[in-house]
C-alpha cells in the first residue's frame, strides 16, 4: 500500500513536469529545451513570495499561470513563429527550435542566477498526512491533486470543446488543419502558451517538496522528454499514464530492491517502450 500511494504521488509529480512539454512539442511542434527553466522559474516565484511575504505557493500558482501564459505566448509569437514560418519541413523546425530554445534556456538560467544563485528551498505543508495507513507528505498530495485536476481539465478541454478539437487537429496535421479553416498559428501559440503555464504552475507546486536551483532545469526537461516519448507525443493521456507508470516502478524498485536502482529501472522501461512500441504508449504510428 505504501508503494502504491507513494508511487502514485511521484507519478503525479512527473505528470506535472511532462504535461506542459507535451502540449508544446505535440501541438506547437516546438522541442522546447527551456521547458525545465520555465518550471524552475515557477518554483523561484513561489520561493521568493513565500520567504519575502509569506504568500502561500498555492496563491502564487494562480498568479504564475497567467504570467507564464502571457510570457510563453510572447516567446512563441516573436521568437519561434519566425522559425515556424521559414522552416520547410518538420525536421528543420525541430533543429531550429532546439537551437533557439537552448539559447533561451541559458538566458533564463542567467536571469535566475542573478535573482537567487543559491538553493531554492523552503518548507510549505511539510506535514505528515495519513491515507489508508500510509504516511505521505501533504505538499506531495496537494501537488498530486493539482496534477489530477490539470490533467482532467486538459483532457476535457481537448475532447469536449471546439478550441480543444482544433488543438487536436493541429497536433495531427498542420496542413490539413489549415485547409479546414483552423488558424494554425493562433492554435499553436495557444498550445505553446498553455504548455508553458502548466509547466510553470507545476514548478510552483514541485518547489514545495523538491530543492531546486537556477541551473537544475535541464534535469526536468530530460525527465519530461522521456515521459512524453514513452506516452506518445501529443497525447495528454499518454503523458499522464507514462508518468504514473514511471512513479510506480521507481517507488517499487526503491522499496523492494534498492533505492540505488531507480534510475536504472526508469531507463529500462524507457528502452522497453522504444523497442516494442516506438511511437509511445498512445502514439500514432507514422505512415
Amino acid at each position: 500500500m505504501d508503494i502504491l500511494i507513494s508511487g502514485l504521488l511521484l507519478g503525479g509529480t512527473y505528470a506535472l513536469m511532462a504535461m506542459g512539454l507535451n502540449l508544446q512539442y505535440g501541438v506547437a511542434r516546438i522541442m522546447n529545451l527551456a521547458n525545465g527553466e520555465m518550471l524552475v522559474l515557477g518554483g523561484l516565484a513561489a520561493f521568493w513570495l513565500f520567504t519575502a511575504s509569506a504568500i502561500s505557493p498555492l496563491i502564487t500558482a494562480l498568479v504564475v499561470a497567467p504570467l507564464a501564459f502571457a510570457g510563453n505566448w510572447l516567446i512563441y509569437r516573436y521568437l519561434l513563429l519566425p522559425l515556424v514560418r521559414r522552416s520547410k519541413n518538420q525536421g528543420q523546425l525541430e533543429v531550429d527550435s532546439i537551437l533557439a530554445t537552448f539559447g533561451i534556456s541559458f538566458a533564463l538560467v542567467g536571469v535566475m542566477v542573478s535573482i537567487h544563485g543559491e538553493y531554492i528551498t523552503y518548507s510549505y505543508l511539510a506535514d505528515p498526512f495519513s491515507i489508508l495507513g500510509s504516511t505521505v507528505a501533504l505538499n506531495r498530495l496537494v501537488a498530486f491533486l493539482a496534477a489530477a485536476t490539470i490533467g482532467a481539465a486538459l483532457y476535457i478541454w481537448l475532447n469536449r470543446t471546439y478550441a480543444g478539437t482544433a488543438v487536436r487537429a493541429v497536433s495531427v496535421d498542420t496542413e490539413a488543419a489549415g485547409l479546414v479553416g483552423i488558424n494554425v498559428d493562433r492554435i499553436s501559440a495557444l498550445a505553446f502558451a498553455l504548455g508553458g503555464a502548466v509547466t510553470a504552475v507545476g514548478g510552483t507546486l514541485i518547489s514545495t517538496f523538491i530543492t531546486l536551483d537556477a541551473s537544475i532545469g535541464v534535469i526536468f526537461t530530460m525527465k519530461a522528454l522521456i515521459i512524453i516519448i514513452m506516452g506518445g507525443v501529443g497525447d495528454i493521456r499518454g503523458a499522464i499514464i507514462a508518468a504514473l507508470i514511471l512513479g510506480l516502478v521507481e517507488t517499487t524498485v526503491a522499496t523492494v530492491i534498492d533505492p540505488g536502482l531507480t534510475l536504472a529501472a526508469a531507463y529500462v522501461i524507457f528502452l522497453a517502450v522504444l523497442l516494442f512500441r516506438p511511437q509511445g504508449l498512445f502514439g500514432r504510428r507514422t505512415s
Partner: protein
Amino acid sequence: MNRRTIMVSFSSALLAAGIAGLTAASVIAADPIKIGVVSHLTGPLAGGEAVTHTPNIELWAKQINDRGGLKVDGEQRPVEIITYDDKTDPAEHIKAVQRLATQDEVDYMLSPYGTGFNIAAAPIYAKYNYPLVAVSAITDKIPELSKRFPNMFFTLGTTSGFVEGVRDTLVTMRDAGTIGNKIAMVNVADAFGIELADTARPILTEAGFEIVYDKSYPLGTPDISPVVKGAKASEPDAFVAWSYPPDTFALTEQAIIEDLDVKAFYTAVATCFPAYADKFGAKIEGNLGAGGINPDTPAMQAYRKAHKEVTGKEADYWASATYYASLQVLEQAIEGVGSVDREATIDYIKNNSFDTVLGTISFDENNNSERYWSVGQWRDGVFRAVADTGMGDSVPAVAKEGWN
C-alpha cells in the same frame, strides 16, 4: 557576459584622489593586483559556491581595498577580482584557468569549489605555478597530491578525519547512554557519498556499531521517502547520511514527515547552511551535520558580523570561515613576501604560520593544515562544532529530542 569584474577599486581610488587633491588623475591608486577565480556560477555546484565561496571573496576584496590595498614593493596595491563561470564543467574549468593565466595574466588564483574540481584542475594550476590554498577539497590523498603539486595546500581535512569525527561523536553519545549500537546509513551515489560510505563502513564497525540499513540513492532522486521508510523500519538508534545539499534538505523533510525519531540524526553537506535553519526552524534542534564552528572566539564573531554587513547574508557554519581563512593566508603570504612573486609566496605559505579567523594555522610536510571542525550540531540557531581535528574547542554532542 562571461567575464565579470566583481570588484573595482572605487574606495582606494577615492582615497588616493582625496589625499592627492590637485593631481588626482596621476595618482589614482597603483595598478591592482589581479586575482583570478574560476567559479561555478551556473551548473550543479552553483548553489554551494554561492553560499560558501562567492560572498567571502566579495568580503575579502572589499576589506583589503577599504584599507588601501596590499602592501607590496613599498606601495599599497588594491586587488581586482576576475571571475569566470565554468558551468560546473571540468573541461570549461581548465580552459578558464588557462585563460586567466595566459590572457588576463592574473597574479594569483583562488581555489575552486568541490573536491573533484580541486583535484581535476590541480595539474593546470601547478603548470602555471599558482599557489592554491584549497578549501572544499576533502580527500585521503593529500600526501600524494602535495608531492605531485607542491603549490597546493589543504585546509578542510581528510575523508577519514570526517568519518572519524562522526564515529567519535557517536561513540561519545553511546558511552553517555544516549544511543545504542544500531546505525542506519545511506549515501548519495556520487563520488563524494560513495567514498565517505566506503570509509565509514569499516570505521563504524570497528567501533562496535552495527549498520542495520545501508543503501545508496542516485543524485537528484525526486522522492526520498522509500529510503527514509526503509531506514525507519530497521529501527536504528542513529541515522547517518553522506548526502549532498538537495538530498540533505529532502532527507530531513522526510524524516520529519515519517517521524524518524532517533537521538542522533546526521546529514552531511548543507546541514551547516543558514538556509537549512531558515527552512526547518526549531525542528532541527540537535541535528548533526558536516562542519560546525566555534562561534565564541572574537575573530569568528567579527568575521560573521562583517560577512553579514557586507554581503547581506549569514556565513555558513563550516567552510565559509575556512575559505575566508584561505584568503587570509594568501593575503598574509603576499604581504610577507612583499612582492608579487608566486614562487616565493608558495615558499612563504609552507614555512610560516598565519593568523586567521580559525586561529593560527600552518601547514605540515604534506601542505596540510590539520586544524578543522568535522561535526557540528544545531543548538539554539547556531551550528556548533561537536568534533574536530586539532582545534580542541568542540563541545560534547547532546541527544536530539524529537522533531518539535
